[in-house]
């Protein structure tokens, strides 16, 4: 066991992160498990790097303030002490946040069965969303320019209900996100394929799934019997 694995194990135990998610209801052979694309970690790292760069810039600006010549020496001393503390915290946080980013990338499951999907993500803030295809209203694929360069896209699956902002960016509820996948088209096609069975509005009616009403097959049986009867009467 490498050191990284050992730390990972310890963190997961300490944070009481449950093991892999259970597969939701659905035919066993239909289960497909997707994960975030390899480049998703690169994308996370870009965001993480930008955030850290912004913090570092702020700290540098605060440090520059201490060079103002008119500053009383006591104020300068306090300023510098606070600055040193902030820099220390910042430096200490870098490996921790890096590790959490890495775990966040690894601990992602997008599970699709023929009836439902379950998306689990997060390490410190864990969330697991479960939806049935019967309730899904809309599928959206989006990617920003950098994500496209990295060959990534996000597939958003929405159920009925409001809560969007004007830009169509949903907040927490009503949406399952396949974040940072590198096979968005395949996932989209799979979801569309599995949605095809449902012809209702997905708002609480009983699901209509039988491709042919039972009365029709019963009528066919009557027809068949009648024909057979005629045949045997013909040879009578």
């Amino acid at each position, binding site marked *: 066991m490498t050191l990284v694995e050992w730390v990972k194990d310890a963190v997961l135990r300490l*944070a*009481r*992160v*449950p093991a892999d998610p*259970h597969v*939701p*209801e659905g035919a066993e052979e239909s289960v497909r498990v997707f994960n975030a694309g390899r480049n998703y970690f690169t994308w996370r790292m870009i965001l993480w790097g930008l955030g850290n760069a912004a913090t570092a810039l702020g700290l540098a600006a605060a440090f520059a303030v201490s060079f103002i010549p008119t500053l009383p020496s006591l104020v300068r001393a306090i300023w510098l002490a606070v600055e040193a503390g902030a820099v220390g915290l910042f430096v200490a946080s870098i490996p921790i946040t890096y590790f959490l980013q890495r775990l966040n990338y690894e601990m992602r499951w997008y599970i699709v069965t023929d*009836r*439902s999907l379950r998306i689990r993500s997060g390490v*410190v*803030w*864990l*969330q*697991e*969303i*479960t*939806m*049935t*295809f*019967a*309730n899904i209203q809309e599928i959206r694929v989006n990617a920003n320019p950098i994500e496209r360069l990295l060959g990534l896209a996000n597939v958003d699956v929405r*159920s*009925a*209900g*409001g*809560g*969007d902002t004007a830009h169509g960016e*949903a*907040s*927490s*509820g*009503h949406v*399952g996100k396949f974040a940072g996948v590198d096979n968005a088209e395949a996932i989209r096609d799979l979801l569309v394929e599995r949605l095809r069975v*449902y012809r209702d509005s997905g*708002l*609480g*009616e*009983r*699901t*209509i*799934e*039988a491709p042919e*009403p*039972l*009365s029709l*097959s*019963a*009528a066919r*049986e*009557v027809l*068949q*019997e*009648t024909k*057979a*009867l005629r045949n*045997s*009467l013909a040879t*009578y």
Partner: protein
Amino acid sequence: MNPPQIGMSAAPIPPHIVAIERPRESLMTYYVLKAIAANVAFPFVFPYLYFRYHTMRYRFDTDGIHMKWGIIFRREVLLNYSRIQDIHLRSNLIERWLGLARIEIQTASGSASANMTLEGMEDPEGMRDFLYSRMRGTREEKAGGAADPVAAVLLEIAGELRGIRALVERPRA
């Protein structure tokens, strides 16, 4: 003939779920920590959470969930299992240490936040699975089914025809 098929909501609720009325005690611990984390807002947050915990009542029946809480502003939420749109199971580090998780239930009403949040369940994952099993679209539900009266009559006619044919084809004495 099979008895008419009724919707899944008529299936009995497991007794350990019917028995749930109150959130578990560790929820109060969590609320205390949450109030402390609210810092200067503690004097406002703590009483709210205190009374929320102590007045929180759940009821799970065959059709749905009732949840009520509040002392000054009384709140009661009723929700049908079949109208559940999606279920979120969320927890942060502190909650997991206390063995807690929030089950956020969404319906198709127009709010972005959860329509009902079940807190302090004894077995959050088990509860989630139970609710999920009551959601529509989870299991096969054929329209009509054996309850279709036209199909039943037609099958009976087919049976009669089969009988006539058997009589016709019977070797004559």
